[in-house]
């Protein structure tokens, strides 16, 4: 029997491996189920590559330390779950405004509150977008397999460096804890932190550029970083015109690059009358449901997104225009469905399939909903 060189890996392990592959050399965290294995892996491996791991006193401190290390030049990452993600929100907003690259992994578990720490959920999807006060840019990815946990961690680190922005990686307990056989690339494409072409008159927040390279502290330029609104040089400046420009630029640096940020895949979409819109672990059930539907001769397709934010508006709009109905399975009470509804503008029926009790949605549930809609649709 032929021996294939694949590896059995847990999703959380793959995430840590992805972080290391992308060049992450600093991790600060605080243990919390079901994310702890990421910290444990980083504690094990970082000192071997000369990187630094620290377990902080709480999640707030962990988020702060990650930003501090990034300012010193580190590619930095932290991992947590719901309760810790809530605690990180204030400093996440700081990273967004000050444009410090960093990655926050949230392995979602069943909430609210302590909820059920060992059960899966997709309940923090909206929190990733709106959890901190005030408007701010955010990018969020959500993998649906162990392999993708690796790939999207690499992507998250790259995006955070490229756009000088915090990136959220939304795993769920299923993807985080399950093991799959994966074959990982020896090398991945890595975005290194940009260096400014011209060091003269270094301005860390140029307004006429979407992204200004960030020179780490201690590397020749000494300047100021603040969570107050600031001018191009980084000093506090609350003049309304400047604030508007800053905010516009912050949003533009994400919104103008949706092509680079939005990753989706389609399955059996061409002639689909009903489309399942899905992400994360739920898409595993969705895929099976769609296969089964096609096997039964039903014109059902699937649009899966790996990018939660920015929301893939264009793709969903196109689907809404084509299909009669969109089914949105989520392990929550309906979150991303708000976006689907908004974008669909009434062009297609939008129906959720929801589980919020710690169980994964089954293919049967989705199939049933799809069939119900097909019957409705052919009436």
């Amino acid at each position, binding site marked *: 029997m032929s021996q294939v060189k694949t590896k059995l890996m847990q999703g959380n392990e793959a995430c840590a491996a992805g972080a290391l592959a992308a060049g992450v050399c600093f991790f600060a965290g605080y243990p919390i189920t079901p994310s702890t294995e990421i910290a444990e892996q980083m504690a094990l491996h970082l000192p071997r590559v000369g990187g630094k791991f620290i377990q902080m006193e709480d999640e707030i401190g962990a988020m702060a330390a990650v930003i501090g290390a990034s300012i010193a030049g580190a590619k930095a990452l932290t991992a947590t779950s719901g309760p810790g993600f809530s605690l990180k929100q204030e400093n996440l907003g700081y990273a967004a405004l000050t444009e410090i690259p960093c990655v926050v992994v949230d392995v979602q578990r069943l909430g609210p509150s302590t909820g059920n720490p*060992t059960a899966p959920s997709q309940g923090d999807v909206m929190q990733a977008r709106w959890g901190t006060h005030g408007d701010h840019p955010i990018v969020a990815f959500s993998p649906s397999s162990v392999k993708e946990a690796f790939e999207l961690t690499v992507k998250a680190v790259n995006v955070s460096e490229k756009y000088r922005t915090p990136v959220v990686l939304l795993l769920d307990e*299923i993807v985080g804890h399950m093991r799959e056989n994966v074959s990982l690339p020896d090398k991945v494409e890595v975005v290194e932190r940009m260096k400014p072409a011209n060091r003269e008159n270094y301005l860390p927040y140029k307004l006429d550029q979407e992204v200004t390279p960030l020179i780490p502290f201690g590397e020749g330029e000494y300047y100021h970083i603040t969570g107050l609104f600031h001018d191009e040089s980084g000093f506090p400046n609350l003049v309304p015109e400047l604030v508007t420009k800053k905010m516009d630029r912050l949003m533009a640096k994400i919104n103008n690059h949706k092509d680079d940020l939005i990753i989706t895949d389609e399955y059996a979409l061409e002639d689909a009358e009903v489309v399942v819109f899905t992400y994360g672990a739920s898409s595993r059930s969705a*895929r099976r449901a769609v296969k089964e539907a096609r096997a039964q001769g039903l014109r059902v397709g699937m649009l899966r997104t790996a990018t939660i934010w920015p929301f893939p508006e264009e793709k969903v709009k196109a689907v809404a225009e084509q299909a009669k109905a969109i089914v949105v399975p989520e392990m929550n009470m309906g979150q991303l469905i708000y976006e689907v509804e908004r974008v669909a503008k009434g062009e297609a029926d939008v129906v959720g399939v929801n589980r919020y009790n710690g169980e994964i949605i089954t293919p049967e549930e989705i199939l049933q909903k799809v069939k119900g809609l097909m019957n409705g649709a052919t009436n």
Partner: protein
Amino acid sequence: MGRMEMRLSGSGGQGLSLAAIILAEAAASEGKNVVQTQSYGPEARGGASKAEVIIDDAEIDYPVVTEPEVLLCMSEKAYEKYVPSFKGKTLILDSTFIDSCPEIDGVNVYSLPITKLAREKVGRQIVANIVALGALNGIVKIIDDASLEQAVLNRAPKGTEEMNKKALEVGLELVR
């Protein structure tokens, strides 16, 4: 080979997660697709815990075990929890802990002194999980014996290789 679902159940300290991982790794080494999961949290402490493996030639979409074909039970509590709803073909019980040996239509029930033999023949109760692995594969034969042995050795802490090999053999013996 189509999709094959297996559930290994018992209590917290019995090393069933490791057994499931080894099983999955052995299958993967043969080019199969595998998904391995396990129960976490307080329920895994004290109560019944489980570790599961799905093996398939094709890509595995839905990653959850719903109707395992094979069920291993290594504690009374696990027996109570998982046997009643079992609809598969192969049921393996560790008679060290489970007295009953039910007759179920269409199910091959194996009541084996797994832990007892680990203690008596290998000398360490801790390798009962490997004994169980040997027996399980001996029955369902999804994996080449050599692949399984290699997988066990890959995971064996240094110095325990022989003991683990022995345990695997004891298990295989049991059902040969």
